């Protein structure tokens, strides 16, 4: 995720599920009095999660905020511009780094699609 979108990383803590919402919406988290929606990133991107999420990556785009439930922040560093096309509308693209293919999340598109406004519909 581009660092300019990242506000902070926190412990996942308590999440209150909202019945009737999409499964990738884990629920709500109380971040020091502010109610934050929590998105299950693995489910959203349709990738198998190997471990249950433990951390909350709090991101912002266009005035909208959400916490992404993730396993762990592996590294913060510079990446070249994405060179590879990806199938998912929720990624800007992908970049090869040290032998790994790294997908870059399009935070704005993720928010739009969850709100039901974007062209991409979230995976069920």
């Amino acid at each position, binding site marked *: 995720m581009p660092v300019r979108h990242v506000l902070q990383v926190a412990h996942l803590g308590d999440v209150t599920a909202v019945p009737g*919402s999409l499964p990738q919406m884990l629920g709500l988290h109380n971040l020091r009095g502010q*109610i934050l929606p929590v998105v299950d990133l693995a489910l959203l991107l349709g990738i198998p999660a190997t471990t249950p999420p433990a951390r909350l990556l709090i991101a912002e785009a266009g005035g909208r905020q959400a916490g992404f439930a993730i396993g762990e922040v592996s590294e913060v560093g510079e990446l070249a511009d994405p060179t590879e096309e990806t199938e998912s509308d929720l990624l800007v693209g992908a970049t090869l780094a040290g032998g790994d293919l790294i997908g870059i999340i399009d935070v704005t598109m993720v928010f739009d699609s969850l709100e039901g406004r974007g062209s991409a519909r979230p995976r069920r």
Partner: protein
Amino acid sequence: MHDLDADLTDIFRDEAAERLDQMETSLLAVESGAAGAGSVDSLFRNAHTIKGAAGMLGLDDIRTLAHAVEDVLAGVRDTGVFPPELAAPLLRATTVLRAQVSGTEVPVDELLRDLAASMAMLSPGEAGASDAGGPGDGPAPTSPDDRDAGDAGRPGVAPTSPDDRDAGELDPEVHQPPAQRRPLRVPAEKIDRLLDVVGEVIQYRGRLVHSLGQAQLSHEVADVLSSGERMLDELKDTAIGMRTLPLTVITRRLPLAVRDLCVAAGKDVEFIITGAATALDRVILESLYDPLAHLLRNAVIHGIESPAERALANKPSRGRLEIRAMPRGSLVEIVVADDGRGVSPEVIEEARREGSLADVLARAGYSTAPEVTDLAGRGVGLDAVRSYVQSMGGILEVRSEPGRGMEVILLLPLALALLEALLFERGGTVYGVPLVVAEEVVMVSQTLTLEGRSVLEVRGRPLQVADVAELVGAQAPPLGDRSPALVIGVAGRRAVATCDAVLGPEEVVIKPLSPLFGDVEGYLGTAVLSDGRIALILDPAVLTRAQRRGAAMTTPRKAGPVAPKILVVEDSFTVRELQRSILEAAGYSVVTARDGRDALAALDRDTEIALVVTDLEMPELDGLDLTRAIRADGARSSLPVVIVTSCGSEEDRRRGIEAGADAYMAKQGFDQQALLATVERLVGR
């Protein structure tokens, strides 16, 4: 310099709009005969002030038109006669002035000619002065009787709002002449921010009290805390007070709008506003005019019948349209009621199956009129009104009785941010509903299962019982044998919702659910509680809606051939609905009638009715006469009739049986099972 001008123009707009409001109220009174030449002074003063201020600001079009209005009013003052017909051109002028004041350019030449021509009505002996009593006799106050006679058969509206008349006392702030008020102009955002901060401080107090809860506090600390609490309450009320305005701010314009509609639609309507002094959040008020105007438009065009149609239905030829507002805890209830045709019995039936009348009518494009007129646009548009109410964190409900009218009920928060909520827990999640909809808390240990539906008798009425988890679609372990439950009542619809624990009331700062949840429905918002947990605040309609039809499909009786249809005849709404729910729970299909005559009409309409359950004492045609009428009619002389009545004497029973009833049951000690057994025996199942 330019800024100063802009500021002055703003102030002029506010003031002129207020004066135009007052003028329209007076002119409508004049037009309906409720006011005479005595009201001319304030009209003249208002027109004169608008003219002067417009002249100073170089708004020449406004000045010219206001001047023409002033001329007409000067004529009225001089002759001492105010013919009601003169109100129409003057109202056209105030409408145009209002448009001009808000910055719209409107051609006025024709209007100026009309106003000049209307002066002719003031000359003695000219046509048009006929209604006004003796010309030249000075002010001629019209008696109420004269007014009724003069209005008969003429479409129009009589603004008879008791509030408006008393408003001077009820709400001096709003009705004083604008010049005497010295409001401070503060940007709305600053007040919004103030209330936000107050909300946060209330939350903070909650957390503080919660964390101190365990510790043993000294008297001093407790004193300090409680005086802090008092001050905070006062601060909250003051902040809310700054953000609220009385409903009059928008309702003053409504009588004119209704009058115009009535004229266009050929309807004769009495329009009444009560509770106009009720305060409401400014943000809500700003956007409430359109939805209210929409509901009134629907009522005039679709709801209230033409005078001729009303005469046929034995109704007074003048329809009644009402707006009632009253505070209900941290919410405000606004009811738009008409005595028109209401929705059809079929729609009521559909609403019973689907959960609520609001659900059915709010389906896009639903209309109660067989054809759509230009005036109302396409469809009733109740869906738009409902989305609006929900977006404000409010609740929309609809009640209707076929042929008798319709009520649309808007429950809106008094202040957008704060809500008095009743909190409860289910499956580890905290939920809340507005406290006003929670009627009581009961323990549910044993429910009656009537044909697949769980029912609990609360104060003599069987209410649907359902698990909160099931109603909202949450995962939760099954409830124990004895569980606490809330009795929820929304606009006459009541149900029981069971949960793990009722936590009690708490004032919460409500935040809308993040838009990232897409179009999830059923939540008014979310709130952080004093213990740091998050509560989901539910739209109470979620808890009262009928359970899915799937459950009923599995019951054996429903699966059989068509359920026998029973006609319930009863003038008491409560008893009627009680009998309906008992019979429906047993798998019968039920139609209802309010009295004997209504019942005979229903029998004519519907040949499938297999049995009649009737009350004895009813207006129009009573139960004995109904029974005799049925027996006397060859086609249905063998139709089974059960009389259920509070007249339980032997003599009454004998008269009932003599009239031809098949069974006679007393209401005292009313026994559901006995009724069902009798009905079952008579329809032969």
